[in-house]
């Protein structure tokens, strides 16, 4: 490490770091931005993107039409410094830009026991992004708001589950953006032209064929996160193609699948033949290229399901649902299941969601059903992004593969994975109960 006072490189010649590298071709406007003609903030953002493009070996930049930013999470002081630096330079986003879940339930900060210090830092970073003109959606499921991108649109999205949903289910085009690149894209409207922005890189790479999976399991909410977890482990950062999902697979099921695959692996896109828009047929999904074929059996899925549980026994301290943020449909289904029952006094029941869903539930009169049963709604954030669980809570139950995958390491809690029905039954009884029949392999004792 050393300090430098060198002039920042600005022109193509000066940007050249070694002799064998051809610098990117920039448009006249890119050069002007890089030169500072539009201000210091766009200059800084463009400088970062151009250097990134050269690292990636991109030839040029391309226009994007929408951005989803997850830099609004208070991960460290450096993240805050970066946001406040751009805000202090009066940076403004020039394309519609949504904000991810952040590190605070901002309308109910005192409901969750955050420290004063935490509240202050989380608000500062949130305010910096608001000052730049981002839209306060505060959700990791921006694809379930009014800001849904269109098929084929070039976008720059952060947040792994949102990225995989945008690419796979919507057919919008994004790479895995995140720290720093998301807001730089929003300020300049540009990103390096490479990866999933290009049609030739969006074809399937491995075929996964579901083999003899019982219909009743295909119809259960727990099937999809387990399948996602399995896919992430097997596909790594390749593009998996799924054959055998029911044609009526819901958006929420694909959301759970993608979130699982983006947690256990680096999956940024999948195809489901006959369901997702770039995979009308098997041939469509692979675009003529050759591929490896893997069969997925019920035994494989049982193994994946077991991996998602890091606790055994019947101890249960909390049920936590909503990673990605619980949708209106998921919340209505929960209300149906829990109606007329009470969460056990020894169990905390938390649903992490966004303001849009809470207000929709309120308008339908369903919020009362949930809160009356003892369910607490948390908005804008989640248990992985903010310290909101009481220290006595050690064992969680969830139907989210993402919560199940990350909670042991990130927040030091053990997890039992179950279906939505399992979660409700367990919360009511005050101990873990799971329906095993759906997962039983025929012939096994």
């Amino acid at each position, binding site marked *: *490490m*050393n*300090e*430098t*006072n060198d002039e*920042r490189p600005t022109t193509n010649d000066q940007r050249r*770091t*070694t002799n*064998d*590298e051809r610098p990117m071709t920039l448009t006249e406007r890119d050069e002007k931005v890089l030169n500072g003609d539009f201000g210091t903030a766009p200059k*800084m953002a463009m*400088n*970062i993107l151009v*250097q*990134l493009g*050269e*690292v*990636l*070996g991109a030839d040029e930049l391309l226009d994007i039409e929408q951005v989803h930013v997850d830099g609004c*999470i208070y*991960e*460290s*002081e*450096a*993240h805050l*410094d*970066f946001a406040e*630096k751009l805000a202090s330079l009066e940076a403004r986003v020039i394309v519609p830009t949504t904000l991810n879940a952040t590190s605070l339930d901002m309308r109910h900060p005192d409901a969750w026991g955050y420290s004063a210090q935490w509240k202050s830092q989380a608000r500062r970073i949130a305010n910096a992004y608001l000052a730049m003109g981002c839209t306060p959606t505060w959700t990791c499921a921006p694809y379930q708001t009014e800001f849904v991108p269109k098929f084929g649109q070039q976008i720059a999205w*952060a947040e*792994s589950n949102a990225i995989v949903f945008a690419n796979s289910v919507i057919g919008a085009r994004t790479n*895995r*953006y*995140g*720290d*720093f*690149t998301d807001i730089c894209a929003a300020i300049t409207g540009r990103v390096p032209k490479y990866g999933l922005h290009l049609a030739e890189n969006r074809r399937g790479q491995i075929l996964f064929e579901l083999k003899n999976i019982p219909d009743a399991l295909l119809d259960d909410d727990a099937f999809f996160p387990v399948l996602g977890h399995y896919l992430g482990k097997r596909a790594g950062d390749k593009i998996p193609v799924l054959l055998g999902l029911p044609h009526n697979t819901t958006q929420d099921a694909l959301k759970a699948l993608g979130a699982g695959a983006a947690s256990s692996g*680096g999956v940024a896109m999948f195809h489901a033949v006959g369901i997702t828009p770039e995979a009308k047929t098997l041939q469509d999904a692979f675009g003529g290229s050759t591929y490896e074929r893997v069969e997925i059996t019920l035994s494989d899925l049982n193994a994946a399901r077991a991996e998602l549980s890091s606790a055994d026994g019947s101890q249960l301290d909390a049920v936590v649902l909503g990673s990605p943020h619980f949708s209106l449909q998921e919340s209505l289904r929960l209300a149906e299941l829990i109606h007329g029952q009470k969460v056990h006094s020894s169990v905390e029941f938390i649903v992490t969601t966004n303001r849009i869903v809470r207000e929709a539930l309120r308008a339908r009169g369903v919020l009362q059903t949930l809160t009356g049963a003892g369910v607490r709604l948390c908005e804008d954030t989640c248990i992985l992004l903010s310290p909101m669980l009481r220290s006595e809570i050690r064992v969680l139950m969830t139907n989210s593969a993402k919560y199940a995958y990350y909670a042991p*390491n*990130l927040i030091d809690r053990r997890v039992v994975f179950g279906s939505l029905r399992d979660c409700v039954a367990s919360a009511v009884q005050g101990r873990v109960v799971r329906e095993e029949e759906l997962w039983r392999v025929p012939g096994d004792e």
Partner: protein
Amino acid sequence: MGTIQGHALNSGNAQGEVIFTDEPLSFWGGYDAREGTIIDKHHALYGEHVAGKIFVLPSARGSSTGSGILLEAIRLGNAPAALILKRRDAILALGAIVGRELYNKILPLVIVSDEDFEGLHKARFARLDEDGAIEYE
């Protein structure tokens, strides 16, 4: 003793003790920016102090938040003295790029060939220059 010509993704000079791994590392959840140590329990270098050393690894892996963790380490002075990688890695490169933009601190980052990477396996000390040349012993 040896000399390698690498490709500088973030140019700078550095020298120090070499710490080598052939296993990718997720900086998010794997690198403690406050201590400059590896905290991924599944990683071969778990518990090792890496701050101030020439860290040789194939690439990062995992979440893009790794960029911010590296930046936080740079801010606190707990980053490696330099990174020598086998693959062009956007996560680590971004941390280094923003380190220069935001804090005016240079974390040199050099890419080397697979063969040269293996050659660094037993290196104890290395010196890098701005053109990506690496001398080691």
